């Protein structure tokens, strides 16, 4: 927490040095000549909701009049007299190219509500006015735009290279046809939200669906894990058996052990494993009659992805085995 607060304070402090007075000041300057009366100025300040105004002669600063001065003039019966005679002539100013920290320090030091901003040090040409609230609102805006920028960056980073390493895991129950496809659908939605291209997502979806259905139809149950890595998506599917007696044979398109009921639903066409292999950049099946079957597939999603157009029907970014 202390560390967090330190960062916050450092940021504000840094901004106080970075932001120039000219960025935060109010323009255009409303000014009066020394011939204006306190009453005229009072009416203007009231209307504009200012608390003070510079007095200029041919653009050069010659004095300043604040609400306090107007109250004193009213008290002393000078309200209809020109300000030139009694205004404060020694005016503290701040050059426009100074940081707002300088303006803030001056406001604090002299307990002023506002400072005329001059063109350059030693100059008497007024280019704006700055108050505490100008400084504060500009700081808030700066912090806000930094926060928005960070958010944007994070979103962009999430959609491209620096994806968080994530693993989605699904338990798959045998013969549970009602939930068949739910895991694959969830994977698809998740990868789409991560910003992967539709063609890549469809390839991964086919691998997941075929694997998911295999576990549900043929096995005693298992799980599917989808790992989202920097440059690839890895799909690991394992079941508890009974195992594939001849993996090589099972890989042949058209070879099936599915029963009549399953085939009537359009499953068990003997294309599952070859479909998966075709959609994957790396694919392996290991099976033992003791421990069950493990499918390990990878689809490259980064710059290293071997993109061969037309690997899948419809010209998807894919690879032919």
């Amino acid at each position, binding site marked *: 927490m202390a560390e967090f607060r330190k960062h916050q304070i450092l940021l504000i402090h840094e901004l106080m040095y970075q932001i120039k007075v000219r960025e935060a000041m109010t323009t255009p300057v409303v000014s009066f000549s020394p011939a204006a009366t306190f009453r005229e100025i009072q009416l203007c300040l009231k209307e504009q909701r200012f608390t003070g105004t510079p007095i200029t002669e041919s653009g050069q600063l010659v004095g300043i009049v604040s609400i306090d001065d107007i109250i004193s003039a009213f008290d002393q019966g000078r309200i209809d007299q020109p300000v030139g005679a009694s205004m404060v002539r020694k005016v503290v100013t701040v050059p426009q190219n100074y940081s707002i920290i300088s303006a803030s320090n001056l406001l604090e030091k002299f307990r002023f509500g506002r400072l005329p901003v001059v063109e350059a040090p030693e100059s008497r040409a007024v280019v704006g006015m700055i108050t505490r609230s100008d400084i504060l609102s500009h700081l808030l805006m700066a912090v806000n735009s930094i926060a928005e920028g960070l958010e944007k960056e994070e979103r962009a980073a999430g959609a491209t290279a620096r994806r968080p390493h994530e693993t989605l895991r699904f338990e798959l129950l045998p013969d549970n046809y009602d939930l068949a496809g*739910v895991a694959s659908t969830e994977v698809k939605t998740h990868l789409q939200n991560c910003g992967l291209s539709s063609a890549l997502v469809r390839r991964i979806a086919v691998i997941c669906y075929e694997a998911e259905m295999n576990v549900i139809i043929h096995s005693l149950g298992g799980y599917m894990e989808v790992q989202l890595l920097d440059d690839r998506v890895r799909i690991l599917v394992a079941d508890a058996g009974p195992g594939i007696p001849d993996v090589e044979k099972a890989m042949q398109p058209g070879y099936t052990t599915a029963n009549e009921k399953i085939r009537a639903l*359009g499953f068990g066409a003997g294309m599952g494993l070859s479909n998966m292999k075709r959609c994957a950049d790396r694919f392996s099946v290991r099976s033992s009659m003791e421990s069950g079957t493990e499918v390990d597939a990878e689809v490259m999603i980064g710059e290293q992805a071997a993109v061969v157009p037309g690997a899948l029907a419809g010209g998807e970014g894919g690879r032919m085995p």
Partner: protein
Amino acid sequence: MTLKQVVELTGLCPVHLANGEVEVAAVYCGDLLSDVLAHIRPSSLWLTIQGHQHVVAVAQLRDVAGIVLVNGVAPDPQTVTKAKSQGVNVFGSDETSADLCMKLAGRL
């Protein structure tokens, strides 16, 4: 052609219409799910005799524009439920896949 235009042209009967404005770019006829997974192109209209719920997942995974249950096949109740929850367009037709394809030939 949009899905809505395809429906008008071929007289499909909506089972669940989620979005009629999607573009239909091709047609695919298939009843073996793995075959469809392998060969159907995105934005296709899929003509099939499989009325069970698994067609919805396959269509969703392959970005299919819509499923048409041909030959008067009725959808299972779960098919309708899943189509609604996943926003997949499903239609029915009394015609055969071949007849529907001929109506659409050269029109997409």
